[in-house]
C-alpha cells in the first residue's frame, strides 16, 4: 500500500462522485455525490501530505471538513424547502425556469 494506491483510490472516489452527480436526478443523492467528492479530496490531501513529509495537507483536511459541513447544512435546508414547495426531489421535474 504505497502513496500511489491512496492517490488512485482518492481519484477513483472523486470520479464516482462526478459520475453520480451527472447521472442521478435526486437532489439528496446529488448532495451526497458532492460530499463524496469533497471527502475524496481530503484523502488526496493526506496522501500528498504523507508523500511530501509536510503537515499542511493534513490541516487542510480539517478546514475542508468544516466547509463541507456548512455547505451540506445550507444544501439540506434548501432541499427541504424544495420538497415542501414542489412535493418532489427529482431535479428533472423541477423546471419552471427555461429559455
Amino acid at each position, binding site marked *: 500500500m504505497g502513496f500511489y494506491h491512496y492517490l488512485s483510490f482518492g481519484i477513483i472516489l472523486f470520479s464516482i462522485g462526478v459520475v453520480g452527480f451527472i447521472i442521478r436526478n435526486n437532489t439528496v443523492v446529488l448532495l451526497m455525490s458532492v460530499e463524496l*467528492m469533497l471527502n475524496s479530496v481530503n484523502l488526496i*490531501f493526506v496522501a*500528498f501530505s504523507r508523500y511530501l513529509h509536510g503537515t*499542511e495537507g493534513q490541516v*487542510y483536511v480539517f478546514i475542508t471538513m468544516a466547509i463541507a459541513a456548512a455547505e451540506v447544512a445550507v444544501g439540506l435546508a*434548501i432541499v427541504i*424547502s424544495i420538497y415542501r414547495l414542489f412535493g418532489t426531489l427529482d431535479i428533472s421535474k423541477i423546471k*419552471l*425556469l427555461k429559455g
Partner: protein
Amino acid sequence: MNFVIPDVNLISLLPEIILLIFATILLFVQTGSEKKRICALLAFIGLVITLVMVPFYWGKGIEGFGGLVIRDNFSLMCQTMIIVAVLLAVVYSYQYLVFEDKNIGEYYALTLTSVMGMNIMITGTDLIVIFLGMEILSISLYVLVAFFKTVREGMEASVKYMLLGAFASAIFLLGISFFYGASGKTALNAFVMLDGTSAMAMPLFFMGLSLILVGLGFKIASAPFHMWAPDAYEGAPTSVASLLSVAPKIAGLAVIFRVGIGMAKYSPEIMMTIIAFMAVTSMIVGNFAALRQSGLVRMLAYSGIAQVGYMLISLLGIREGGGSALLFYLFIYVLMNMGAFGIAVLLTKEKDKRLLIEDMKGLAGQHPIIAFTMAVFLISMAGIPPMGGFFAKFYVFKHGIEAGYLWVVIVAIITTVVSLYYYFRVIIVMYMTEEEEKGILPKHAEVNLFNAVLVAVALLIIVLGVIPGSLLEIAQHAVAF
C-alpha cells in the same frame, strides 16, 4: 516541535472584521416598524466604512497572517469595485424588499458576509484562503437566492445554483490538492516547482491549474460552465440577481489574475489556451443566446456571460500588463450592469413575476429619465463611444492583440456586432413603441432616491467614456507589482 507564532497583523483584515461585526449586529437587530430602514442603514454604514478605509491602505501593501493575505493596490482596487456594486445592491434591496417584511436583518447580514468572502478571495495569496473566501461568498449567495422561501422559481434557482456551485467548489478543491502535490505549498506568490519529482510534478501541476480554472470558470459564469447563471439570475430576487451578476465575477477574475501572475515564471501556455477557449465560447454562447430571450433579466444574464468573455481576453496579455485593462473593464462593467439591473428592480411588479422586455413599452414617454439612463447602460454594454464601455473594450482588444491572440479579438469584434441587435431591441421597445395607458412603474416605487442613483451611475459611465485616462492610470498603478 518548534512552533513559531505567525505575524498575525490584524490590520490587514480590518475591513473584513468590521464587515463581520456589522453582519452580527444585523442578525440581532430587533425593532418594530422602523426595522427595514435601520437594517438598510446599518449595512450601508458598514460598507461605507470599508470603502473609506481604502485610501489609507493604498500603496502600503500590508501583509498579514504570515503572508496568507496581502492588501496590495490590486486587491484594494477590486475591493472598491465590489463595495460600489454592493452599495448599489443595498439601495436596490431597500426598494425591492417592499415585498417582504420578515428576516430583513438576515438579508443584509448575508449581503455583508458575501462581501467579506469576496474580500478574502481578492486579498488571499494562498489557495486555501481563497477557497475559504469563495465558500463564504457562495454559501451566503445560495441563501440569498433562496430568500423568498415561498417563490417556486426562486427555490428552483437556488437549488440549481447550490448544487452546481458545490460541484464547482469540489473541482476547485481537487485542483488545489494537485497543486499542493506538485509544489508542496499552496501559496501563489511563492510558487516553486519541486525538484527531483519533476517527472510527476509537471503533469500534476498542469492538471491542478486546469481544474482550478474550471472551478473559477463556474463561479464567474463563463461558458462552457455557465448553465446555472441564467436560471439563477432569473429566479433570484432581482436585487440579489444584481449582486450575483457582478460581485462573484470581480472576485473570480481577480483570483484568475493572481494565479496567472504567480504562474508567469513557468510560462503556462496551457493556462492561456484554456482562458482563450473560455473567452471564445463565452462570447459566442452569451451573445447568440441573448438574441432570443424575451425576459430582461435573462437577457442581461447572457449578456453578462458574453462580457466575461471580453474580460477574459485581457487576461491573455497578463504578462504585458493586461491586468489594467481587466480592472478598467470590470469597473465599467460594475457600473453598467448594476445600472441595468437597477432598472429591472424598479420595474418588477411582483416578487414571483418575471419582467419581459415587452413590459418596457413606452417607458420613454412616461419616464424619460429612467429610459435615458437605461439607454446609456445598454449603449455602454454594446461598446459604442462616447460611453465608458467603448474604451473598456478598446483596451481589452489592444491587450489581446499585443499578446498575439488576434483570432480571439476577431471573434470578439464579430460577436460585438451581433450584440448590437439585442441591446438596441430594448432601446427600440422603450422609445419607438406607442405609449400605453396604464402606468409602467409599479405603485410602490420610490422613484426619487432611485432616480438620483441611476442618473449618477449613468453620468459616471459617460464621464469615464470621455476622459478614461485617470481611471486607467490608477488601474496601471494597481497591477504594477
